[in-house]
C-alpha cells in the first residue's frame, strides 16, 4: 500500500507524491494533465492527510483511475470540511454511484462536495429512508390488501404499485417527529391507492401543475377523514403535523370531503369550486400526483388482473366439475361499502364460497381499482385463454416472476474499500445439461466394493431407536434395574426409581447443500473425480435419508455468475439427476462469493435443525475481471462464508489443491475446511468426510 514505505511523521515532498501518482493513476495522466498540480497541493498538507489520500487513491484507482484522480484533487478540501472519517464516507458513496451509474454520475457526486456536506449535516438530525424502510415496509404491508413496494425518491408520490418516499426527512429536531412524518406520508400514499385517488378516467383530472397540486391537497383532506375512521391513532399524528392550518377557502371543501362516501370525483368537484387564488399550505407529508404514470400502471394492472381472475374462475369451475360458468356473485358482506371498507364474500349459487387465497387477493385488488367487480370479469376464460397443456398457471406471483427472469443481484465484498459493492453480482440459475446416462452405473461398478462398505458405515449413522436403560420413566420396565432396586430395598436401601426402559429416537434433521466447482480449472482429472465423488455421495445420502441438494457454480465477471442446478432439495435422486451429475462440465471462472451467497439463501429457506453448506473447489477463487483474482476474491469468499455462518448455516469447505496454498487458512479460517491433496481419493473421501461431519 502507498503509506507503507515511509513511516515518519514528516510530510512528503511534492516530487515524491507526484511519483506515487504516476505509479497509481498513470493511465489517466498525460502531458497536458499531469499530477504535478495535485501533488503540489497535497504536499502542503500534514502527513496523516497525505497517507489517507494516497491510500484511498490506490484503492479507488483499482476501480477507476479517473475517479481516483478527481478524489486526489478534492481530498484536502473534503477532509477540511468533513474530517477524515467523513471524507471516507463521501468517497465510498461516490464509488457506490460509480458501481451503479458509471463514472459521469460518480464524478458529479464527488465534485458536489458542498451539497454532500449540507446533506450530511441535515442527516445528523433527520431520518433517512434506509433507516425507516424496514419498519415501514411491513407497516404498509399490514395496512393494505395489496403488496406495495417502497422506494426512495426526491418527493413523495405513488404509481399505485410502489410508494415513493423522500430519501430523507429532517423537519424536526427529534428523530421521533421526523419518523412520524415518514409514517404519515407512507400511510397517505397507501390511502391514495386504497381509496381510489386514481380511479377516474384520465380526462377527468385537471391538467395544470397548480390544479394538480391543489387536488393532491384536497385528496389529503378526504383521505385523512378516512384515516380518522379507520386508523384513529394515525389521525392524531396527522392533526399534530398538519401545520400551518389551511386557509378559510378550504373550509367548506374540507367539511364536504369528510362525508363517508366521498370519492376522488368529489375532490375534483371541490377543485372547481375553489377560488382561483386558493393556495395549498405546504404540509411536509403531502406528496405530488404523477397522474400519467399512476394511471398507466393502474391500467396495466387492471388488464392483467382481469385475465388472471377469469383464468382463476375457469380453474374453479373445472375443479367443481362444471361445464357451465358458475354463477359467482360478489356481495358486500358489510354495509360500509361507500367507505371502501366492504368485505366481499363471493357467493356460488347462493351459498358462500371460500375462494382460494389467490382469488381473494385478486378480487381485493380489483375492488380497490374499480370499486366493483364488473360482469365481464366474472366470465371464466375459455380453454383458449388458458395456458394449454401448461398445467397450473403461475400462482405464486413473486416467486414465479423471480424464476422467470431468473436473475438475482448480490453484494460483493471489496476488501480495499472495506465495504460492499452493492448489488454488484448478477447471478442466474440454470440447469445442468444431462450427460452420459451410463456414467453413474459405471462409477458404481468401478467402486463396487467400496460402495458396499460406504453404505454400511452410513447405515450405522441412520437415526435409529435406542433403548435407554435405567430411566425414571419409559415405555417398559427395565427388569435388571428393577431386580437391583428390589434387592436394594430389601437390604434396607432407598427405593431406586430409575427402573424403566425408554426408546429414544436420535433424529437427524439435516439439510445439506453441496456446491461444486465448475470452473475451467477443474478440466480433466479433477472434473472426473468430482463427478464420481458426487455419485458415491448420493448413494450414501440416500441410505441416510438426509435432505440434500447439489449445485454447480461458475461464471465470467460480476455480470455473469451462474449457479447450475444438479439436484434441488425437492428433487429425488433419479435418473435425471444422475445424468446431470454426469453432465457437470468445466466452464469458466470461479467467482465463489456470489455463488455462496445465493446458495446459502436457498439453504436458509430449508427447514432443518442443522444446515450444512459444503463447498467443493479446486483452489483459489478466480475471475479475470475487477481484480477478483488473488486477494480480492479470497476476501470476498471469506466474507460470504462469514455471512452464511451468521445466517445459521454451517459452511464446510473441501478443497483439492495440491499446493495447499497458504491463503487457505485466511479464506476458510473463519469456517471449517479440509484439503484433499490426492484427487484420486476424492470420491471416497467426500462421503467419508460427510459422515464424520454429521456423525
Amino acid at each position: 500500500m502507498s503509506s507503507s514505505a515511509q513511516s515518519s511523521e514528516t510530510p512528503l515532498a511534492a516530487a515524491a507524491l507526484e511519483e506515487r501518482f504516476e505509479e497509481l493513476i498513470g493511465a489517466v495522466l498525460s502531458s497536458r494533465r499531469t499530477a504535478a498540480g495535485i501533488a503540489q497541493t497535497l504536499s502542503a498538507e500534514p502527513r496523516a492527510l497525505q497517507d489517507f489520500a494516497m491510500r484511498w487513491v490506490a484503492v479507488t484507482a483499482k476501480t477507476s483511475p479517473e475517479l481516483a484522480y478527481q478524489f486526489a484533487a478534492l481530498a484536502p478540501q473534503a477532509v477540511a470540511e468533513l474530517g477524515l472519517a467523513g471524507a471516507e464516507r463521501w468517497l465510498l458513496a461516490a464509488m457506490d454511484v460509480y458501481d451503479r451509474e458509471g463514472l459521469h454520475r460518480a464524478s458529479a457526486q464527488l465534485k458536489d462536495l458542498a451539497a454532500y456536506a449540507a446533506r450530511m449535516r441535515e442527516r445528523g438530525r433527520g431520518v433517512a429512508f434506509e433507516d425507516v424502510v424496514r419498519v415501514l415496509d411491513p407497516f404498509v404491508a399490514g395496512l393494505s390488501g395489496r403488496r406495495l413496494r417502497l422506494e426512495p425518491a426526491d418527493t413523495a408520490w405513488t404509481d399505485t404499485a410502489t410508494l415513493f418516499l423522500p430519501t430523507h426527512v429532517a423537519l424536526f429536531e427529534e428523530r421521533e417527529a421526523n419518523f412520524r412524518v415518514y409514517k404519515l406520508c407512507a400511510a397517505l400514499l397507501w390511502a391514495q391507492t386504497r381509496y381510489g385517488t386514481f380511479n377516474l378516467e384520465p380526462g377527468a383530472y385537471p391538467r395544470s401543475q397548480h390544479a394538480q397540486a391543489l387536488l393532491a391537497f384536497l385528496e389529503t383532506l378526504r383521505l385523512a377523514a378516512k384515516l380518522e375512521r379507520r386508523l384513529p391513532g394515525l389521525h392524531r399524528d396527522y392533526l399534530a403535523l398538519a401545520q400551518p392550518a389551511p386557509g378559510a377557502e378550504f373550509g367548506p371543501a374540507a367539511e364536504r370531503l369528510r362525508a363517508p362516501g366521498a370519492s376522488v370525483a368529489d375532490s375534483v368537484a371541490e377543485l372547481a369550486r375553489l377560488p382561483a387564488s386558493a393556495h395549498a399550505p405546504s404540509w411536509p407529508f403531502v406528496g405530488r400526483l404523477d397522474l400519467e404514470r399512476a394511471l398507466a400502471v393502474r391500467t396495466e394492472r387492471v388488464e392483467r388482473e382481469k385475465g388472471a381472475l377469469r383464468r382463476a374462475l375457469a380453474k374453479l369451475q373445472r375443479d367443481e366439475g362444471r361445464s357451465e360458468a358458475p354463477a359467482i356473485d360478489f356481495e358486500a358482506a358489510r354495509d360500509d361499502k361507500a367507505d371502501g371498507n366492504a368485505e366481499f364474500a363471493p357467493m356460488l349459487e347462493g351459498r358462500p364460497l371460500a375462494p382460494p387465497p389467490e382469488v381473494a387477493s385478486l378480487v381485493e385488488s380489483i375492488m380497490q381499482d374499480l370499486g366493483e367487480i364488473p360482469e365481464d370479469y366474472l366470465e371464466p376464460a375459455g380453454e383458449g385463454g388458458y395456458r394449454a397443456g401448461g398445467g397450473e398457471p403461475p400462482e405464486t406471483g413473486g416467486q414465479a416472476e423471480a424464476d422467470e427472469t431468473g436473475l438475482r443481484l448480490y453484494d460483493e465484498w471489496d476488501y480495499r474499500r472495506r465495504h460492499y459493492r452493492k448489488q454488484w453480482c448478477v447471478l442466474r440459475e440454470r440447469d445442468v445439461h444431462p450427460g452420459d446416462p451410463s456414467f453413474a452405473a459405471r462409477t458404481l461398478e468401478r467402486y463396487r466394493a467400496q460402495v458396499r462398505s460406504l453404505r454400511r458405515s452410513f447405515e450405522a449413522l441412520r437415526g435409529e431407536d435406542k433403548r435407554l436403560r435405567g430411566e425414571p420413566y419409559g415405555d417398559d420396565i427395565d427388569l435388571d434395574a428393577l431386580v437391583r432396586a428390589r434387592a436394594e430395598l430389601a437390604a434396607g436401601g432407598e427405593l431406586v426409581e430409575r427402573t424403566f426402559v425408554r426408546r429414544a429416537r436420535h433424529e437427524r434433521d439435516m439439510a445439506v447443500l453441496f456446491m461444486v466447482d465448475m470452473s475451467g480449472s477443474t478440466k480433466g482429472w479433477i472434473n472426473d473425480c468430482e463427478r464420481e465423488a458426487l455419485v458415491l455421495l448420493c448413494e450414501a445420502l440416500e441410505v441416510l435419508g438426509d435432505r440434500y441438494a447439489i449445485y454447480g457454480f461458475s461464471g465470467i465477471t460480476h455480470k455473469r455468475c451462474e449457479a447450475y442446478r444438479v439436484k434441488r432439495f425437492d428433487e429425488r435422486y433419479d435418473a435425471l439427476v444422475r445424468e446431470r451429475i454426469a453432465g457437470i462440465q468445466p466452464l469458466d471462472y470461479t467467482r465463489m462469493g456470489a455463488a455462496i451467497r445465493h446458495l446459502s439463501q436457498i439453504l436458509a429457506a430449508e427447514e432443518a435443525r442443522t444446515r450444512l453448506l459444503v463447498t467443493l473447489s479446486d483452489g483459489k477463487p478466480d475471475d479475470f475481471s475487477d481484480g477478483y483474482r488473488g486477494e480480492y476474491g479470497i476476501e470476498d469468499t471469506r466474507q460470504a462464508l462469514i455471512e452464511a455462518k451468521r445466517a445459521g448455516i454451517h459452511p464446510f469447505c473441501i478443497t483439492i489443491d495440491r499446493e495447499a496454498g497458504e491463503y487457505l487458512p485466511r479464506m476458510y479460517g473463519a469456517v471449517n475446511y479440509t484439503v484433499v491433496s490426492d484427487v484420486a481419493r476424492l470420491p471416497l473421501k467426500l462421503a467419508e468426510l460427510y459422515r464424520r461431519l454429521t456423525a
Partner: protein
Amino acid sequence: MNAPQAADAAALMIEREPFYRPVHGEVELFVAAWRNRVPVLLKGPTGCGKTRFMEYMAWRLGRPLVTVSCHDDLTAADLVGRYLVTASETVWVDGPMAHAVRIGALLYLDEIVEARKDTTVVIHPLADDRRSLFIEKRGEVLKAPPEFMLAISYNPGYQSVLKELKHSTRQRFVAIDFDYPAADIEAGIVARESGVDPMTAERLVRLAHMTRNLKGNGLDEGASTRLLVHAGKLIAQGVAPRAACTGAIALALTDEREMLAAVNELVSAVF
C-alpha cells in the same frame, strides 16, 4: 382395578356452557359425525377456537372431554398407559386414550402432527370402524362404547413439511375447517370474552387483520382471536390500549426488532 386412575369421569365433564359462536354449521356436522361414530379432524390456525369448540361440543353432548396436547416426545405408551412401580408391585395405569375409551369420552388430540409416528399404531384402529384400542402390554382389547369419539386437530399453516399429516391418517376423519371468523363476528367474540366495548373490539379485530396481512411477509402467523381476547382483557382492566396490544399481540407475534416496531406502528395507527 386397583390402579390410581388418571381422573374421574365426573371431573372431566364440562359443567357450564362454554361461550362458542357457531360460524358455518360446524356444530351440526360434529353432532352428525358423533351420532354416526365417525372421528373428526379440526383444521385451522392457532387460536381460532378449535379447543373451545371441543369444550362446547362436550358440554352440548353431555360427555366428558379428555384433551391431550401432543408434543414431539409423545409416544403410544403415553397415550395408552404403562406399568408403574410402587413399593411392592407394578401397577397398570391407563393413559388418557385408554381412559377416554373406557368412560366413553370425547378424546381430543391437539396438534396431532407433533406426536411421534408410533402413535398412529393406536390411532388408526380407533379411528376406523374397528373402534378398538389394543393394549399390547396387557393383552387387552378395549372396544369403544358408542358415546366415545376421537377428534384430532391439525394446523396446516406453520408446521414444517416434515410434519404433514399422512393420508392414511387424515382419510379416516371427517374434516371441519376452522378459520378466523368474519370481522363482525370476531369483534363480537372479542367483546364478549374480554369485556371490552364493541368499538375497542372492532379496532382489535382491525389490528388483527393487519397482522394477518403480514403472514408470510415477515410474520409466521397473524394475531389469533385468542391474542385479541388477551389484549381485550388487559384493556378492560384499565391498561392503556397501546401498551396492552404491544404486550399481548406485538410481542407474542415476533422477536425481531424491526418487525416488532412495524407491528407497534400498526397498533399506534389503530389506537
